């Protein structure tokens, strides 16, 4: 057979292979059968563009993970720590009375309030000139929701809803403190949706379109879904991990009050750039601060403020 006839005959075999037609005869061909077998396997060759694109996407995600690493640095202080304005000594005192919290200056400008295994940061003034801090919402797990709810009212809180057994498996009440923060105070019920091992104090985000918000958190901060419970086509409850922190997300008709969160990261510039790329608005480009932090701030599509800092350990 001439060379030209051979290349044509092999090309017809390739056509058969690519069209997923019966290639039995080609595979039995004494001359071209072994090549037909290779051609059949070649259909499974990965696309170079896909392989390179996935590699590049993973490298970028890995760089974000590296940039997010090192958050917290000690127990309680995780990658994402809720941050509130001081309200004088009010917020810390309220938390002490209701949750038995302890508080102490962490470094100039910040006070740390510890509740169980978690921490909250209170800004004592230096951030206010850069990023406005607003009241926010928190989910606190306690041994006895009814007793903590009563203590919250005695400490000046206003009831937004007395403790009741919630269908997802928590007995919880809702209180507004005198400084405008909302506290969802709950005790998990046996057999409920809430996974064990959650931290005492959890930032939670209720939002219409919770899935979109979760996608933003994944793109911007490399958040990982740890638990997702869906119902009626919506996310009923999701537990997500951002670095060493956990947060909760759920679908709601009305968005929760946007809060402010302090992110302790290894590379504020990289995290800031990814957040902007994911759709956040810049509040403060990465800046070296006199307090020794490299600090940036963004606003997410839900209106939450994220302070992205390297240096506070």
């Amino acid at each position, binding site marked *: 057979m001439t060379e*030209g006839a051979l290349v044509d005959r*092999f090309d017809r075999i390739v056509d058969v292979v690519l069209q997923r037609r019966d290639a039995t005869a080609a595979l039995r061909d004494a001359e071209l059968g072994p090549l037909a077998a290779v051609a059949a396997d070649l259909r*499974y*060759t*990965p696309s170079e563009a896909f392989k390179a694109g*996935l590699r590049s996407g993973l490298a970028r995600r*890995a760089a974000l993970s590296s940039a997010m690493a090192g958050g917290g640095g000690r127990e309680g202080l995780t990658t994402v720590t809720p941050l509130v304005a001081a309200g004088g000594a009010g917020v810390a005192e309220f938390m002490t009375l209701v949750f038995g919290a302890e508080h102490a200056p962490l470094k100039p400008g910040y006070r740390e309030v510890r509740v169980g295994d978690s921490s909250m940061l209170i800004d004592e003034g230096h951030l206010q000139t850069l990023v406005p801090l607003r009241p926010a919402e928190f989910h606190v797990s306690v041994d006895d929701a009814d007793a903590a709810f009563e203590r919250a009212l005695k400490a000046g809180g206003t009831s937004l809803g007395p403790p009741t057994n919630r269908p997802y498996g928590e007995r919880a009440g809702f209180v507004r403190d005198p400084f405008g923060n909302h506290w969802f105070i709950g005790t998990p019920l046996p057999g409920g949706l809430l996974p064990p091992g959650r931290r005492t104090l959890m930032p939670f985000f209720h939002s219409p379109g919770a899935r979109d918000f979760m996608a933003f958190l994944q793109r911007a901060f490399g958040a990982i879904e740890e638990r997702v419970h869906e119902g009626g086509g919506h996310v009923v409850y999701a537990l997500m991990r951002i670095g060493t922190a956990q947060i909760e997300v759920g679908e709601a008709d009305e968005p929760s009050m946007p809060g402010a969160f302090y992110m302790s990261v290894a590379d504020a510039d990289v995290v800031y750039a990814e957040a902007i790329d994911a759709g956040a608005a810049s509040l403060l480009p990465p800046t070296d601060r006199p307090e020794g932090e490299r600090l940036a701030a963004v606003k997410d599509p839900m209106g939450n403020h994220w302070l992205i800092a390297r240096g506070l350990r």
Partner: protein
Amino acid sequence: MTASTDDERRLIEAAQADPARFVELYDRYFDRVYAFVSRRASDRALAEDVTAEVFHHALANLGRYEWRGLPLSAWLFRIASNALADRWRHDARERNEVPDDVADPHEAETLERRVMLFQLVDRLPEAQRQVIQMRFVEERSIREIAAALGRSEGAVKQLQLRAVENLRKDMRRRD
């Protein structure tokens, strides 16, 4: 512990300490994972979706991976199997069908052969590699490839045959 498993363990620990090193694991395992997934996936789009899911999941969870002496590929294959099963369950619910069992006694052999083939394709001379990608991955016709590469159809067919002959020769040499 063999040199290879020792090397693998070092790579895993490096990526656990610094996620930026994860791409080294990707480079090492991509072909194997893709071969595993593409053998089970009904089409290329699904194979790519699931392969991407496997590596993103692995990156996100590598910190929790505990070395127990098994190759990392066993963990990656388990992630892939779960991802495929999720999709099959979803599709089966939509079509009210149960997927066929994909058990294959020659699985390991097929996998090894394809991984070797993928690696050999990467090493083909540039023009032959291009033709293989366009013909077998993009499933373009000889005429389209000829137009894209500025060659005659006869020349493209010739490159196609030469490429497959070279692959066959190299595979026999390695067997």
